[in-house]
C-alpha cells in the first residue's frame, strides 16, 4: 500500500526481452493506451474536472443556476467564522477518533475468535457477523432507530421493565453520537473482519507453535507474533475506517438525521445541506476543499507511518 510518489522511468530489462520490446514497442504503447482509455476519460470527467471546478467555485458565489461572480476568499472567510462549520468538523473528528479504535478492536477481536481453534460454531457465527454487510446504510439506520426508539424501542422497554430509566437515545446529543458509533461499528465489522481473517490465516503456524513450546502465553503470542505480522492489514483497516468515518452520511440520515437538531451533523451532511438544500454551491465547495485538504493530510500522515514501519 505504500505509494511511490515519483514517476519512475521503465527500468532497463534483459537484452532479449529488450529486443522484442523494441520490435513491438508501438503495439506496446497503443494497446495499454487503449486499455486505460475509458478509465482515463471517466477519471478526468468525474474526479479531475469536479476537483478543479470545485476549487474554482469555492471562490465564487455560484448558486447552481445563473451567473457566477468571483468573490475572492469571501467564502473561506465566512466559513472560518461559521460556528456551524466548526461544530460539524469537530463532531466529525470526535466521531472518527472514536470509530477507528472501535472498528479496529471489534473486527480484530471477532476475527481472532473466528480463527481460534478453541471456539466452536465458527461457521454459523461468521455468517452472522457478515450479515450487516448486506444491509444498506439506510436500512441499518432504520433497524437501529427501531431498536433504540425512546418511547417505542425494545432497548428502553427492557431498561424500564427492569426498573431503570430509559436513556434519551434521540434527544441527548452524546447518547445519539454513541448510538451512531455502535451502528457504524456493527455495519463496518464484516468487511474489516474478512480482511483480518485472511491475514491471520497467513500467519505461519510454525511461529505460533514454536512460541507455545517455549511457554509463551496466548496473549504474548498474539502481541509478539500475530499483531506485528498483521501490520499491513491493520494499516489498511485504519486508513479505510478513517476515510469512511469522515464521510459517514447515509446511515446517520436514517438513524437520527444528525440530530438532535444539528448537534450530530457531520461534515458531509453540512456540505450537502449548504450546497443543495440552501443551493449555495460556492460556499459548499469551499467547505469541500477544506475537507479535501484534511483528508489528504490524514492520508499522507498515515502513509508516512506505514513507510517508516517498512523501513524499520
Amino acid at each position, binding site marked *: 500500500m505504500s505509494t511511490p510518489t515519483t514517476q519512475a522511468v521503465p527500468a532497463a530489462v534483459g537484452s532479449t526481452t529488450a529486443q522484442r520490446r523494441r520490435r513491438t514497442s508501438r503495439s506496446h504503447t497503443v494497446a495499454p493506451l487503449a486499455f486505460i482509455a475509458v*478509465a482515463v476519460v471517466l477519471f478526468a470527467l468525474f474526479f479531475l474536472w469536479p476537483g478543479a471546478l470545485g476549487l474554482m467555485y469555492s471562490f465564487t458565489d455560484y448558486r447552481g443556476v445563473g451567473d457566477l461572480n468571483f468573490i475572492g476568499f469571501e467564502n473561506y472567510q465566512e466559513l472560518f467564522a461559521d460556528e456551524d462549520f466548526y461544530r460539524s468538523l469537530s463532531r466529525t473528528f470526535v466521531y472518527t477518533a472514536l470509530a477507528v479504535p472501535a472498528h479496529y478492536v471489534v473486527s480484530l477481536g471477532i476475527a481472532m475468535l473466528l480463527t481460534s481453534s478453541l471456539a466452536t460454531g465458527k461457521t454459523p457465527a461468521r455468517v452472522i457477523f457478515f450479515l450487516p454487510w448486506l444491509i444498506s446504510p439506510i436500512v441499518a439506520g432504520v433497524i437501529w432507530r427501531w431498536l433504540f426508539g425512546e418511547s417505542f424501542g425494545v432497548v428502553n422497554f427492557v431498561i424500564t421493565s427492569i426498573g431503570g430509566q430509559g436513556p434519551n437515545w434521540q434527544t441527548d446529543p452524546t447518547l445519539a453520537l454513541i448510538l451512531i458509533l455502535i451502528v457504524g461499528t456493527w455495519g463496518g465489522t464484516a468487511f474489516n473482519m474478512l480482511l483480518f481473517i485472511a491475514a491471520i490465516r497467513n500467519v505461519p503456524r510454525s511461529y505460533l507453535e514454536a512460541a507455545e513450546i517455549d511457554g509463551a502465553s496466548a496473549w504474548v503470542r498474539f502481541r509478539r507474533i500475530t499483531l506485528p505480522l498483521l501490520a499491513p492489514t491493520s494499516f489498511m483497516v485504519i486508513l479505510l475506517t478513517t476515510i469512511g468515518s469522515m464521510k459517514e452520511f447515509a446511515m446517520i440520515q436514517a438513524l437520527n438525521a444528525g440530530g438532535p437538531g444539528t448537534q450530530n451533523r457531520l461534515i458531509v451532511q453540512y456540505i450537502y445541506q449548504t450546497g443543495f438544500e440552501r443551493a449555495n454551491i460556492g460556499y459548499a*465547495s469551499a467547505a469541500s476543499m477544506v475537507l479535501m485538504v484534511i483528508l489528504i493530510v490524514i492520508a499522507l500522515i498515515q502513509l508516512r507511518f506505514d513507510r517508516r514501519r517498512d523501513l524499520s
Partner: protein
Amino acid sequence: MKTLRAVPSTVILWVLAAAYIFPTAWFLLSSFKPGFELFSLPLTLFPETWTVSGYATAWNRFDFQQYFLNTTIVAVTTTALTVFVSAMTGYAFAKYKAWWLKAFFICILATTMLPTEVIMPSSFIVVRDLGMYDTLAGIIVPSIITATGIFMFRQYFATVPDELMEAARIDGVGEFGLFLRIMLPLAKPIAVVLAIFSFQWRWNDYIWPLLILRDPDRYTLQIALRSIVGADNIDWSVLLSASVISLIPMIVLFAIFQRQIMSADINSGLKD
C-alpha cells in the same frame, strides 16, 4: 482439558454473535406484527398474530416494482461496466510499463483517498451539465471506475506469467486478442468477486441517487426508503416491511455466492 478451555472463547463468540444478530432479528420479527401490536406494551419478541399486512400495504402504496427495476438496472449495468473497465485498466497496469501508466495508477490511488462525497457540489454540476440529471445514466456512468476493482485485477494479472503472453504473441495473437481471449477468461474468479462487491455497492448506494434523481419514477430503493424515513410521521409498519423487502436481493445473492464472498482475498483491494 481442551473442551474446558474452549468454553470462554465459545461463550464470548456466541454472546457477540447474539448481539450482532439481535437488531436484525428484532426488526424482521417486528415486520410481521400487525400495526397495533408494534407499539403495544409489553413488547414481545414474537408477534402474537403473524401478519403480512405491512408488506401488502408497503407493496401497494409504493411503486416497489419500479424501484426494484430501477435499482436492478443501475446495479447490473454498473457492475458489468465496472468489471470490464477494471479488467482492462488493471491488465494495462500489470503487464505494460510506461511512465504514464504509473502516473495514472497514482491518480487511481488518489480516488480512494478522495471519495466523491468530498467534492459532491461540483460533481453534481458536472453530471448535470453532461445532461444526466434525473436519469439513471447519471448514477451509472460516474460510478464505473473504482480503485478497488482496478487493484484487484492488477494484483491478479501480475501473477500471470509473462511467458504465457510471449507464447501467444509468437503465435501471432494481437494485443487485444490476447486480452480478450486469453487473459480475461483467466481472470474469471476475480471478475466474480468484483461483480458481487460492485453489485452490493450499487444496490446500497445512497448519496449519488439522492443528488441525481428527482422524479419518483426513477427512484432507487434506498431513495424510496429515505422518503419514508424522512417523513414527519414515520409509518413504521410500512417502513419495517419496505426495508425488509429491499434486503431480499442481497440475501439471495449472498446465499448463492457465500463461498466466493467469504473466501475472497480482498487484501489487495479496498472498500468503496
